[in-house]
């Protein structure tokens, strides 16, 4: 999908940039404390567990389960209204369920947001990440695993 007028990350936030550089390479990276190993999402400068300023970006499994979901109806911004009603999901990462991502359940990386019949979505169902390129950003979305 290349539809413009979607809201996109600005790629100007230094804390977030490694994440978006990762998605651009097809990797779902998780910021991880260089000292104590605690994962954190969203990314930030300091480890909330040990206050270290050191961080590594570690490739995740890209697998998880649906933690919750909504089905969004208008009124919406035009680029989103054109695909409504569509789902938005929160995914809990397989290796650390406290690490969660907001995304969409799609049939394929570049599919429309309304491709999946929302009535079939279940909390707990397994999903795996795919990357949808929009302009200069690759957004992580999810397909059924």
């Amino acid at each position, binding site marked *: 999908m290349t539809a413009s*007028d*979607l*809201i*996109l*990350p*600005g*790629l*100007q*936030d230094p804390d*977030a940039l490694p994440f978006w550089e990762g998605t651009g390479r097809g990797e779902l990276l998780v910021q991880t404390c260089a000292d104590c190993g605690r994962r954190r*999402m*969203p990314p930030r400068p300091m480890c*909330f567990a040990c206050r270290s300023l050191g961080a590594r970006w570690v490739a995740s499994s890209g697998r998880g389960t649906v*933690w*919750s*979901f*909504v*089905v*969004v*109806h208008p*009124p*919406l*911004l035009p680029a*989103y209204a054109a*695909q409504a*009603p*569509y789902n*938005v999901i*929160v995914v809990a990462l397989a290796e650390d369920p*406290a*690490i*969660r*991502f*907001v*995304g*969409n359940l799609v049939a394929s990386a570049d599919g429309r*947001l309304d491709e999946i019949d*929302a009535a079939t979505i279940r*909390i707990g169902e397994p999903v795996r990440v795919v990357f949808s390129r929009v302009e200069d*950003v690759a*957004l992580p*979305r999810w397909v059924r695993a």
Partner: protein
Amino acid sequence: MRIVIKDRTAIAGIGQTAFGKGLPDSELSLACQAISLALDDAGIAPAEVDGLVAFSMEDGREVEVARNLGLGGVTFFGTIGYGGGAGCGTVGHAALAVATGQCEVAVAWRARKRADKGSRPWAQSSRRLDTPWQWSRPFGLLRPVDEIAMLTRRYMHEYGATRDHLANVALAFRKHANRNPAATMHAKPLTREQYMAARWISEPLCLFDNCLETDGALAVVITSAERARDCPHPPVYVHAYAQGIPPQHQTMTSFFCDDPLRGPSYTCAARLWANSDIQPADIPVAQIYDAFSPLIPLSLEGYGFCARGEGAAFTEGGALEWPDGRLPTNTAGGGMSEAYVHGFNLILEGVRQMRGTSTSQVAGAGSCLVTSGEGVPTSALVLRR
């Protein structure tokens, strides 16, 4: 020395404009009108006001308010952020300032023009985001209702809450609005059938799970308990106040912390009840922030009216309804059926319950809990007669 503000200050005056859509006056003008009415209600002259506490989102800031109303010297002023979470905090900061001698008479207020569709904050989102919204809005989680719906679905999954429970909330508040001539929905009853047939906004939330969009303004005057006893109306004491940001919180999109369903109300409640002689079991009436219906069960749990996971069941059997429910809640109609002015109207209804002047007056009510936004850094008050 530990200073406790308990009952040392009181709300002596309240004022509000009409609620509407497309009101011609500016937010600043509406703010000045509401404050003017509140000062008249308190019998206090503008020149005596020396404290101002506002929402950080307020258009009309302290200096504009002061020079419109002809205030004398202002020695305490400040703002509180996070939108709907701020309301009780503004009153609390004003009470702190009066109790500690930083000012004698403080005003807190909220004016808002939200009814115009173009004024809705989500509709003005930048296309490129470097804020925390970059983790949710690109995926179409655009509006506050979408963010709360995400928590609601999880809540329903974990605890067996149903749409019938959410309808209990919407219908109770509408019944109260139907008794309140000032309420936007005064003349519009709502049935369970209408609720169930309403269009979706963000499943599992439908139209009637959402608050109204309102233009209007409200204000309160806070002064010392001694001074308030000389004012025309009986003083409504600020018995306790607290604010709350829970661990690892992220405003409105707190999906990333260990326990997203343990919201700001839990943090706020711990301080509130620790500083209060009045406890949840003693509270006969409540005004609970209701931008969305599921915030009621979440808040009932957070503020300790029931155990975690029991908030939905708490709403059964008309528990939230005047006059016979175990906890009549949002007795003027709340944000869902009276007006949505970032929850400030809940504070004024709390004052009316303590004055005995609510249109759904709980007989003999001696105290009232008032809360501000759940899902954002929040605040709450215990008011008493």
